[in-house]
Structure formats: C-alpha cells, structure tokens
C-alpha cells in the first residue's frame, strides 16, 4: 500500500472538529430538553382523555417514527419555508426538527412510564386528599421520571448520534467538520481516524456518566 498518512491537515483544522463536537452535544441537549417537554406535556394530557386526543397524539408519534429523520430535516428546512414565505437558519431548523423527533419518541416512553406507576401510589395520594393536579405534580411525574430514566439516557445518546444528520443542511457540527476537511484537503482516512474516536469516546463517556446518574436515581420496575 502506497498511502502515506498525514495528519497535519486535520490538526490544522481541528477547530472545526472540536467546535463541531461541542455543537453536536449542544444540539442533542436542546433536543432532549425540548423533547422531554413535548413528550411530558402530551403524555400527561392524553391521560384519561377521549379517543380523539389519543388518536391525534398517536398520529403524530407514528408519523415521526416511521419516516426517515433525513426526510424530516429536509421537509422542515426546505419544504415549510417554500410555502410559508419565511426562512430560518439551518441550526434553528434542525433544532426544531430534532425536538419534534425526540418528542415523538419520548411520548411513548412517558406513557409506558405512567402505566408502570404502582396503582397504590396514586390511591395513596388520593387518600391524603391531594387534588388531581397535585397528584400529577408530586406523585405521578416524579415517580414516572425515575422509572423512565434509563430510557431517557438512551434517547439522549441516540439523539447525539442523530445530530450528524444536521450536516446535510450545513449545520457546522462534527460530521460537517469532517466532510469539510475531507473535501478541502482530501485527507479522508486521517479525518475519519480522528472523528470516529471522537464520536465513540463522547458516546461512551455519556453512557458511563448517565449510568452513574441512573444508579443514584432510577427506580427499578418491580
């Protein structure tokens, strides 16, 4: 093999990768935060509602889960402004898409979590005279969050990987940085030899940290 490795081009442009990774993490963090808000709101709202509300929420969930994220990103970035007569930055567009995407996955997670709350806990809340709102705020939501904590950390890591799709609309995250360097310097092997460990180490570090949090706070389903 006559290929000579030369990492100089990668190190010279390392800022693009470093800041790209930071932006990836930022996007994932905003995505999970917005997703939790959407998911929590819809899951709590759907409780004990009629068929219409449940069907609408199911339609949202099923649509998002069965369409490629790439297509959703294009749809929001190119499709909607073309008829709306307005525009937004690529980053804003991606954050919105990722939040809607995360919301659809988390509604299901929270719904399952609410179902897993022991019946007696809610009855106990009723017995000591908590109003429905108080039961939701002090009994159901905190318990449910502790039950679904492992699913939440998996969702966060999964979203971190999904941020790579933002590169297709030129959001300068890690994969975009990798593409930029490889098209401008042709040092493809070297770029990916650096980017691959960046993704893996970040992902595994997040996993380890979140497992620690889970060990402290998660409730095991009996």
């Amino acid at each position: 093999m006559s290929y000579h490795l030369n990492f100089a081009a990668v190190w010279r442009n390392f800022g693009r990768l470093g800041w790209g990774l930071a932006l990836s993490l930022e996007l994932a963090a905003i995505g999970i935060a917005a997703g939790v808000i959407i998911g929590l709101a819809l899951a709590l709202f759907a409780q004990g509602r009629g068929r219409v509300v449940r069907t609408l929420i199911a339609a949202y969930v099923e649509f998002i889960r069965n369409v490629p994220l790439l297509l959703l990103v294009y749809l929001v970035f190119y499709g909607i402004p073309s008829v709306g007569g307005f525009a937004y930055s690529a980053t804003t567009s991606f954050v919105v898409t990722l939040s809607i995407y995360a919301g659809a996955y988390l509604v299901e997670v929270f719904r399952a979590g609410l179902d897993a709350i022991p019946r007696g806990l809610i009855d106990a809340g009723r017995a000591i005279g908590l109003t429905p709102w108080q039961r939701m705020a002090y009994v159901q939501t905190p318990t449910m969050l502790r039950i679904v904590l492992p699913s939440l950390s998996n969702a966060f890591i999964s979203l971190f990987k999904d941020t790579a799709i933002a590169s297709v609309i030129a959001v300068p995250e890690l994969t975009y940085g990798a593409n930029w360097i490889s098209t401008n310097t042709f040092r493809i092997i070297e770029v990916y030899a650096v980017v691959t460990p960046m993704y893996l180490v970040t992902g595994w570090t997040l996993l380890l940290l979140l497992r620690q949090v889970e060990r402290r706070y998660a409730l095991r389903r009996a």
Partner: protein
Amino acid sequence: MMVMVKALPFLWQGLLVTLQISAIVVTIALGLGLLFGTALTYAPRWVAWPVRAYSDIARGLPLITLIFFVYYAMPALKVNVSGWWAAVAALAAFETAHVAEVTRGALQSIHPGQTEAGRAIGLTFVQRMLYVIFPQALRRFLPPWINTVVDTVKGSALVSLVGIVDLMLAVQQVIGRTFQPLPLYVLGAAIYFIINYTLSQLSRRLEARFAYVRE
C-alpha cells in the same frame, strides 16, 4: 397536487432501489447478526470479545458518518468497490450490529435450565440451538428484529447522500426540476410511512401475540 401525480412514475424507480437496498441489507444483517449474536452469547471470550468491540463501535457511530467513511475511504485505501456497494456495506455493517444485539437479548432470555436439559439428554451444541433454544427465542427475537427492518428502510434514505438514486434522492431530483419542495417531501414521507407503518404494526401485533408467554 398534479405535481405529485406526475412525479409518481419517477419516484417508483427510486422506491424500487430503496426496497432493493433494504432487502439486501436485511438479508446480510440477518445472517451475520444471528451468527454474531450467538457468538456474543455462547462463544469463548477470544471470539466474543472482537464481536463485542465490532458491535459497540458500529452502534456507537452515527450511520451517516459510517456511510461517508466507507464511501470515501475505500478508494483512498485503493479498494476497488462501487459506490453502491460501499453504501450497502456501511448500512449492512450498522444493521448487523443491531441484529446481533437483538439476537443476544433473545437468547439470554431463555432459562439456562433449557441448555442444561438439552445437554443432559446428550444433544450437541448445534442440536441444542436448533431444537431447543432458537424455537423458544424466536418470539423474543421477531418483534425487535422487525424494528431493525424499519430502521433499515429509514436508514437507507442516507444512501442518497452518496449519489444513489433511491426514493429520497428521486424526491430531491423531482424538486430540482419542479421547485415545489413541500408537496413532494410530503409525498415521499407518505411512501416511507406506508412501508414502515405496516412493518411497525406487524411488529406490535406479534408482540401482543407472544405476550401470553411468561417465564
């Protein structure tokens, strides 16, 4: 509305490519994934460890990064492979790791007593797998496996980024000529939705069907 109808024959060609790529990837991932999953569960450490490393790396990277890497790095490494196969190989490597984990989960859900009983009546490893473990693990395997098929169809949209005219790129090309992004993206989404929703429902139905079994 007219643009959607007129685009259909062209999108049909793209859809065929999407389905073809998905079918090839699902077949490769099923074969290798079953093998790797069995290795993860039963093989000695020196076999299981490399498989574990492969699985963790393939699942730890974004699929899009994996596809770009395989697609661009193969020529740089002087490996002569078409762009089509590079993209299919990347997708297959990703899905194989997921199928391997699904297989491992299904196999580990079988009570060790089943293996011990098989061993006690003198079944070889292959016989135990074929007649005792796999038939019982099947119900734990099928629903999540169908979910990996859905992920494959969705993931195959990413091959459009390396110039393969699948459904996603066909949609993009029609938009390039008609300048009507919204109706065409919605149409593309609808086609993906129909395929994947059917599969998801099948998975859910099977899960409900097998739910009566309690260990």
